[in-house]
């Protein structure tokens, strides 16, 4: 079989991409990510809940990856990339006139990694989800 390099990358990415990763597995190995999450949650346990992260499974360019996050009722949300030089991507607070606890933004990913969203709920609990994103050309450090 005569695969072009690009085709091989796409196939490879598709083969390894996993839609939903168990959260503990996704973040256990990355201490800095853990510490950043703990600073946000105060060390509270991360629960499963109604939180959705919409992000492509495979992107060619890590400099501009569209991300949407929605967690109905959430007061604030932190987005992280567990293999970026700085794991925290963005934190946002929803105010009294927020129409819906959801937002979209375009982010940089240094390479293939897990994108994690943690949401603070009104009852003081934190819910979380993670997705793996395959990145062909990384953003952040590239000049």
């Amino acid at each position, binding site marked *: 079989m005569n695969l072009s390099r690009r085709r091989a990358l796409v196939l490879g990415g598709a083969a390894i991409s996993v839609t939903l990763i168990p959260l503990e597995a996704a973040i256990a190995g990355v201490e800095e990510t853990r510490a950043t999450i703990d600073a946000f949650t105060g060390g509270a346990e991360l629960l499963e809940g109604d939180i959705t992260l919409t992000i492509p499974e495979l992107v060619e360019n890590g400099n501009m990856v569209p991300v949407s996050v929605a967690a109905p009722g959430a007061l604030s949300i932190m987005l992280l990339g567990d293999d970026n030089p700085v794991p925290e*991507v963005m934190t946002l607070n929803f*105010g009294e006139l927020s*129409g819906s606890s959801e937002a979209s933004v375009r982010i940089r990913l240094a390479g293939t990694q897990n994108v994690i969203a943690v949401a603070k709920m009104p009852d003081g609990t934190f819910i979380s989800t993670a997705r793996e994103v395959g990145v062909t050309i990384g953003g*952040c*450090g590239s000049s």
Partner: protein
Amino acid sequence: MAITPRVRVPDTASVGESVLIKALINHPMESGQRRDRDTGERIPRMIIHTFEVTFNGREVVTFYPQGAVSQSPFFEFYLKVPEAGELNFKWIDDEGSVFEISKSIAIS
């Protein structure tokens, strides 16, 4: 290049309606991770670190980006319209520059 914000806000809405707002600003969002090709020196971080949106002085949403938010950051979010008024957008960057724009929304 001048930094000019652009926003998309509906002219009218009904009371209690949740409307989609889009905001874009052309900003380099220098992540602080890149190095100068010639000198090898790290290029200092210069990003928008705060983006606040208020309606008639009440908070809608506040974003706190880090270096991993893309160049010319584009944000989408929802406003619950309580009455007619002014939607104010305010971006603040690492050099202390503040960029502001307002749009009025009428009740239909």
